[in-house]
């Protein structure tokens, strides 16, 4: 539950950073985090906040960065770009943050990014999927530690190349993310020598998907690519199950996350798709992370929690390398930052500030004893295959 | 030439004939009353003249000009001012603001969105004159909604007067007033009509009021005119007596 005082969270409540600060006279590293905690994107925003808080606490317990404690300043944007800009301005101009996390929605990020230069602030994105942020809207102070939308789609298409499905339909939310992702998907399907039979876009906030389900059935496709999120995603999956759509068509989604699975329960079974992070990734770093996470939150870390943690680690690596949080010193350090992340090796690219990393395909299965279905990793693809060329949103091969 | 002329004016609501082939006229300087029992079509006729509803057939002529298709505000601009059966005022404005706003409607610059001090001054001058003629000067600064019923009725007349109308149309001027209030209002109106050359058309069902105020009377029955003339002549008319006055006279 939300704490009442969030204005300033000296995250390690156990007083260690305070002690550190007094003992060494070190000023904290302030990181501003305007993030959607309420409103339709509140689910994702809340995950991002958990991820950042977990990292800050862990890092402060280990003595902070450069001996300085981390102070997160988290503000609710309600998922509204106008509010987001205001809050970002607040944490930068009032609280003096020169490092930013958050901006849950791509529309928020697109609104904030042009101001980074003026503020001389670095923004490390952990969830913005819009390809243009590292493409046409690129600015030098923006870094993306997470997998982008085009990368997700690429992972799926690489997987489909190996599979038996031959005819595809696509359903996306009627906004930039949906259109961009389906555009990439369409290219990839054709390149793989398979058929793309059509696409349709549902307005944000659609509650009744029966018409779209009819369209998918009529298309004769054996696979349907979904670019849906939040309430729309849950509504579609629930209703698709009601119509037994999964019996005829393999549903493939761009993001598989635990929250959605919990929201629709068994309707998620059989769903396949890419994921940005999943708790079952098999490496020691991740196992340690998951264990520590479970100890604190008594739950498995979800997609945006893992992604946020990775973004934090990326920023930390940059700061430690630069020995400074000044944007001009930090930027080159981040441009060559390489970390051994919970997802394995992840390297930031200097040319467009996109982190190169591997992608995962998961399938949702029912497991005995588990209350909800769980995603299982089907296959993984290495970073050099899933990351587009610099500042590009599409793939050449 | 008559100031107001109705030619074969007819109004049907579905199958119901509310006003049937009414032809009548009001000469300049005349005070004329339209009377008739309930349901005779007085109010419908009034609506046709003021332009609130459109005629099914026939014509309305004002000063020789056909105004049948003209909307209400247009007729008012030509010089027809009216009062309502149920008093219609701007209750939160003072009496003076009421008459002033009425007078302003006659100003060419009534719509001026900026400045307009001269417009207000002229309108207020005319409005105050109207208030004085109806003996309302002492309540000029009170909100209209707080005036007595009788004063409210007179204020409405003052608003019409402030427009310096060529034709004053009154819909049941004493409707809803007590006996004493009616008597007072009729006194004031009678004095007003006597001291001016106003042309007035009033619709009224109270016979005493009609005979005190009107010089000419038109009698309506089931939507049609059955008599027209001087009060004495109308009183004596046999058709009118049987149709309407009954045992009254």
């Amino acid at each position: 539950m939300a704490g009442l005082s969030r204005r300033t969270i000296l995250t390690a409540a156990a007083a260690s950073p305070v002690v550190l600060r007094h003992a060494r006279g070190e000023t904290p590293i302030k990181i501003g985090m305007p993030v959607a905690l309420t409103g339709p994107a509140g689910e994702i925003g809340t995950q991002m906040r958990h991820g950042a808080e977990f990292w800050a606490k862990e890092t402060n317990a280990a003595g902070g960065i450069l001996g300085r404690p981390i102070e997160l300043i988290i503000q609710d944007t309600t998922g509204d770009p106008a509010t987001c800009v205001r809050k970002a301005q607040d944490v930068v101009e009032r609280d003096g943050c020169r490092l930013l996390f958050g901006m849950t929605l791509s529309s928020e990020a697109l609104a904030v990014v042009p101001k980074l230069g003026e503020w001389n602030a670095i923004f490390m994105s952990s969830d913005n999927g819009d390809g243009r942020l590292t493409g046409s809207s690129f600015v030098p102070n923006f870094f993306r530690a997470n997998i982008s939308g085009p990368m997700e789609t690429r992972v799926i298409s690489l997987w489909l190349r190996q599979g038996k499905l031959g005819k595809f339909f696509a359903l996306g939310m009627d906004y930039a993310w949906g259109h961009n992702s389906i555009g990439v998907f369409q290219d990839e399907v054709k390149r793989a020598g398979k058929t793309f039979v059509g696409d349709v876009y549902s307005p944000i906030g659609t509650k009744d998907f029966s018409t779209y389900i009819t369209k998918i059935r009529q298309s004769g496709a054996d696979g349907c690519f979904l670019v849906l999120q939040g309430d729309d995603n849950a509504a579609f999956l629930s209703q698709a199950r009601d119509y037994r759509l999964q019996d005829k068509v393999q549903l493939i989604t761009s993001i598989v996350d635990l929250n959605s699975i919990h929201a629709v329960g068994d309707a998620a079974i059989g769903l396949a798709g890419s994921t940005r992070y999943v708790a079952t990734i098999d490496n020691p770093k991740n196992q340690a992370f998951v264990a520590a996470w479970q100890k604190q939150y008594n739950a498995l870390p979800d997609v945006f929690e893992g992604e946020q943690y990775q973004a934090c680690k990326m920023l930390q690596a940059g700061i430690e390398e630069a020995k400074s949080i000044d944007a001009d010193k930090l930027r080159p350090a981040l441009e060559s930052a390489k970390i051994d992340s919970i997802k394995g090796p992840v390297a930031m690219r200097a040319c467009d500030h996109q982190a190169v990393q591997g992608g995962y395909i998961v399938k949702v299965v029912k497991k005995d004893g588990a209350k909800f279905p769980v995603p299982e990793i089907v296959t993984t693809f290495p970073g050099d295959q899933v990351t587009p060329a610099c500042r590009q949103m599409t793939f050449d091969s | 030439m008559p100031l107001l002329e109705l030619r074969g004016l007819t109004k049907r609501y579905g199958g119901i004939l509310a006003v049937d082939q009414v032809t009548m006229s009001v000469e300049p300087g005349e005070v004329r009353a339209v009377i008739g029992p309930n349901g005779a079509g007085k109010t419908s006729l009034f609506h046709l003249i003021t332009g609130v509803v459109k005629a099914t057939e026939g014509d309305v002529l004002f000063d020789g000009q056909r105004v049948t298709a003209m909307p209400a505000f247009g007729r008012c601009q030509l010089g027809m001012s009216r009062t309502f059966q149920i008093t219609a005022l701007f209750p939160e404005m003072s009496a003076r603001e009421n008459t002033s706003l009425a007078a302003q409607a006659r100003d060419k610059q009534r719509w001026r969105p900026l400045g307009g001090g001269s417009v207000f001054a002229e309108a207020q001058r005319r409005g105050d004159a109207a208030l004085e003629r109806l003996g309302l000067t002492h309540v000029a600064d009170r909100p209209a909604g707080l005036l007595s019923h009788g004063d409210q009725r007179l204020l409405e007349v003052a608003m019409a007067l402030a427009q310096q109308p060529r034709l004053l149309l009154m819909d049941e001027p004493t409707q809803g007033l007590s006996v004493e209030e009616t008597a007072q209002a009729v006194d004031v109106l009678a004095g007003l009509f006597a001291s001016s050359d106003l042309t007035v058309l009033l619709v009224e069902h109270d016979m005493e009021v009609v005979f005190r105020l009107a010089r000419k009377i038109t009698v309506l029955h089931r939507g049609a005119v059955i008599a027209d003339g001087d009060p004495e002549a109308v009183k004596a008319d046999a058709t009118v007596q049987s149709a309407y006055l009954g045992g009254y006279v």
Partner: protein
Amino acid sequence: MRMTIAVAVLLALLPLGLPPYAMTLLTEALIMALFAMSLDLMVGYARLISFGHAAAYGLGAYTCGNILLHTDIPLPFAVLMAGVFSGVVAIGVAWVCTLATGVSFSMLTLAFGQLLYAVAFKWTSVTGASDGLAGIPRTKGPFGTAFFGTKTGFYYLTMACLFGSFLFARAVVRSPFGAVLRGIRENEAKTLSLGYNTRLYKIAVVAMSYMLGGLAGALYAPFAGFANTELLFWLLSGQVLIMVIVGGTGTLVGPILGAVFFLLVQQQLSTYTDSWALVFGAIFILFVLFVPDGIMGLARRRRAH
């Protein structure tokens, strides 16, 4: 008038003493204030309650955004042009909406606003669809000055727009035209029968209201550097109506205070707690219960004591 000058001087001096973040917030508050004031022209003076005033704001913002993105027209002129454009479009909107009165009028404005929202979502080349227009610059000029592009300069531009609009709106409501509007507010049928073509007056006031609302939107686009569909959404229409009511309708000053109050309280509350909406909602309910005629009503009662 003396009061107006005193406030103007005070606001003009503020940049000397306020930290940058407060300047930013204040600028946004003044933009909102202009927006709320523009709605008061309709709601407070002609009882034309609009549920779709975001249309004015969004129109202004998109128009200004496009001008700034695609031309070199100096910032202040672009803002004015966008305001005027919004007012011109409003003539068409008002022509349709004034076919109805009362609640139906409100609903028509809502329908128009939402239709515009739906259109903006699809008209990618002009509105950027769901992404909106990003990176809207503050162009130079007039005479090549970059002053209006700076934080302080933009603040003064906003202030000038607010005060100019306020003086304009005040002159309008005190003019013969304004007197007719009050007539419409209190008794439209009577006003019509006095010989006023009330529908034209209503169309005119809606156009003026949209023009000033468009001006506010036009300021917002270069202020935030972006314009998106949220600026056309009915939620904003609802919020600005609340700002007008909180401030006190039919006062012009009230809605300005209401908007500043709304924005600052929401901003401050959400800084201190996630559950700001709980407190914010309670404030509204308490406000209605105990301060029925808005901030201005409260001020008036204070003075009366």
